[in-house]
């Protein structure tokens, strides 16, 4: 087939930022990427997408992990008439060896377009563009190499996490171990959609929340601590001497609860009123560190706008110790899933479900006691559903 001209996309090869068009062209030695390029140029000309709604495709015994994709111009672009997404569950923290990357490349060179996303929004390795007939062979090669598919549809989506204790001194629990454990424990929930809608789990090691769990996960597990911030006063003095930081203005002055006192020499923290926001620690990483009594806060219910509006996660458990085998969290997950699976509507995320039935009722039904940490303030309206039995 003669190469099509792609003048619009060629514009996007220019400039300092790495170009996705160059990436597609690198793979365009093969026919699939070449047709993808042609189809995309057509979208740029017409200002409209040419992908159709997904169909039901997948690998035997799984209901998730593959997203069907067909184009609406199959006569003109036959090589991408079937161009399905294969989600491959990433290793915790997105760490790889060159050998593992090459293994994935070899599989994908043989069975697909050669294009990937590293990574998709939920965290999976995304193989972009497989024909239906290649799905079982890709899956067989992946499992042979020790990889498996991630989630899609109304299932537990692939859990993801920050680099945690592998690289970060702020991580208040082992996010990578937890994520691996929960992923392995719930393989059935991951691969066989049986929930009202998707359920995402994200694990952040500290309140900086580098994986955006508070905005993007149905269950957000965010590391925190209960005791005093660790202070190295000599290092505080070193920051003061270096002149790179105005400790009074930029550290004490920006504390949200004004619980830091700085006398020009030493820092004192009123830890009872510290809300563990991380600002002072972020600003002075050599002098300050989270306390030693570490664990996590569990929040629930974040989602994007569809259908009833976007939500941030809200507090369900103010503090929990994060130790294997994470029985408290699994008990909580099981109780939440059971209730939501039975009473949630089709395509109702758990955050919307909680809004509909009320947090108070939700707590009662999953067996959690209400505590004031769950709300910013008690109710202001007097329409109380008194329950006198």
């Amino acid at each position, binding site marked *: 087939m003669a190469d099509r001209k792609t003048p619009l996309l060629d514009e996007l090869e220019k400039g300092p930022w790495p170009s996705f068009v160059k990436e597609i062209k690198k793979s365009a030695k093969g026919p699939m990427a070449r047709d993808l390029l042609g189809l995309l140029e057509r979208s740029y000309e017409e200002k409209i997408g040419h992908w159709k709604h997904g169909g039901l495709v997948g690998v035997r015994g799984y209901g998730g992990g593959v997203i069907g994709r067909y184009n609406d111009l199959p006569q003109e672009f036959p090589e991408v008439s079937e161009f399905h997404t294969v989600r491959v569950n990433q290793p915790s923290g997105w760490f790889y060896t060159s050998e593992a990357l090459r293994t994935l*490349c070899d599989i994908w060179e043989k069975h697909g377009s050669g294009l990937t996303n590293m990574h998709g929004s939920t965290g999976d390795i995304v193989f972009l563009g497989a024909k239906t007939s290649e799905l079982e062979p890709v899956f*067989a090669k992946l*499992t042979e190499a020790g990889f498996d598919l991630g989630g899609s549809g109304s299932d537990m989506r692939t859990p993801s996490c920050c680099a945690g204790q*592998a690289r970060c001194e702020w991580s208040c629990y082992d996010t990578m171990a937890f994520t691996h454990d929960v992923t392995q424990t719930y393989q059935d929930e991951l691969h066989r959609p049986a929930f009202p809608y998707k359920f995402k789990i994200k694990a952040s090691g500290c309140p900086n929340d580098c994986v955006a769990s508070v905005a993007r996960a149905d269950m957000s597990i965010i590391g925190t601590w209960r005791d005093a911030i660790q202070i190295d006063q000599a290092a505080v003095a070193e920051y003061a001497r270096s002149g790179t930081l105005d400790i009074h203005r930029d550290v004490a002055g920006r504390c949200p609860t004004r619980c830091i006192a700085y006398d020009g020499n030493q820092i004192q923290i009123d830890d009872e009123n510290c809300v563990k926001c991380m*600002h002072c620690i972020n600003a002075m990483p050599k002098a300050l560190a989270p306390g030693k009594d570490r664990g996590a806060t569990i929040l629930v219910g974040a989602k994007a706008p569809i*259908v009833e509006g976007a939500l941030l996660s809200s507090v369900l458990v103010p503090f929990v110790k994060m130790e294997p085998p994470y029985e408290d969290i699994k008990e909580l997950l099981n109780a939440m899933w059971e209730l939501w699976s039975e009473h949630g509507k089709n395509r109702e995320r758990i955050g919307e479900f909680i809004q509909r039935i009320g947090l108070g009722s939700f707590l009662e039904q999953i067996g959690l006691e209400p505590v004031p940490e769950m709300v910013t303030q008690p109710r202001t309206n007097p329409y109380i559903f008194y329950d006198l039995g």
Partner: protein
Amino acid sequence: MSADATKRKTDIGPPHYEKFLPPVIKENYGKWKYHENPRPGVLVHVSHSGAKLFSVRAATPRLLSIETLRLFAAIADEFCGGYLRFTSRNNVEFLLADGSKVDPLVARLKKEGYPVGGTGPGITNIVHTQGWVHCHSAASDASGVVKSLMDALFPHFERMDLPAKVRVAFACCLNMCGAVHCSDIAVLAVHRKPPKINHDRLPKTCEVPSTVAACPTGAIRPATVDGKQSVQVIEEQCMFCGNCFTVCPSMTMADPVNDGISIWVGGKVSNARHEPMFSKLAIPYLPNNPPRWPEVVDAVKNLVDVYASNARPFERMGEWIERIGWPKFFKLTGIPFTKYHIDDFRHAGESYRRSVHIRQSSEG
């Protein structure tokens, strides 16, 4: 059960991460003491043992060919024993114990076209969705807008020259696969016309009750059209969310003339200082103008420039706007405030000002 089925491996889960960790991480796992960011794109983590880990962060377009992944693998072999990782914002990080190799690695990555940066108070990679590259519900491309934006914002990737980090995110429809709704700057493609119904196809491809139930405003009603079971849309009730299209492929949203891009500001996910917050609407609509989306690029650049010259150190976009107030934000950025900026969905009234706490000015 056939012989094939007994051999077929399923539910093995992802490989254990431990085998991908470099020795310096295995030896110092959970023992890190502090870290520094000595130059853009380079992090140094120091362990209680005194060991050091250098992370060199390079840009990627997220959409990567296996040729590039093999190049990354070769670079990792040459400079750091084959160990690398990817970040939550689609950058690649090379992990070294030997600090003397940092400079040559940075130079090599730059030469290959994957520049180093994206740490500290600046702009790192834009998390984004598939767009026209691979999505059925996209109201714009994603990769092309992101490429155009990052070309323009590139100095802030290579320098740490802003008051605080500015997280930019892109989603190509309201489904927001990238959940962009808590970003300093969220670029969100939108539809602006009700779905077009294919009454011939609808009865064969969709369930009428679930299509009706999909609408959050109750704008979809069952209807009989030319003797066939179908639906109708009360157009004035439609807010173009596209949820019906997700449930029913015969109600298409894509529109080359009216689709375009909205811009939202002031969100964050970190708990540092201010609690996490949603992004709020700055610009309701800009046209889809491929291949370079100049209107969108100019608008985002303006937002970054105005923020950079007005915010104080450590102030994120949303914290800066809270300090100066929204009226001043619109004045400084020159963005017109319209009826579209006022919420009219559930609990809209929560965003109405119910006090006279207004920063009045005789200059109007």
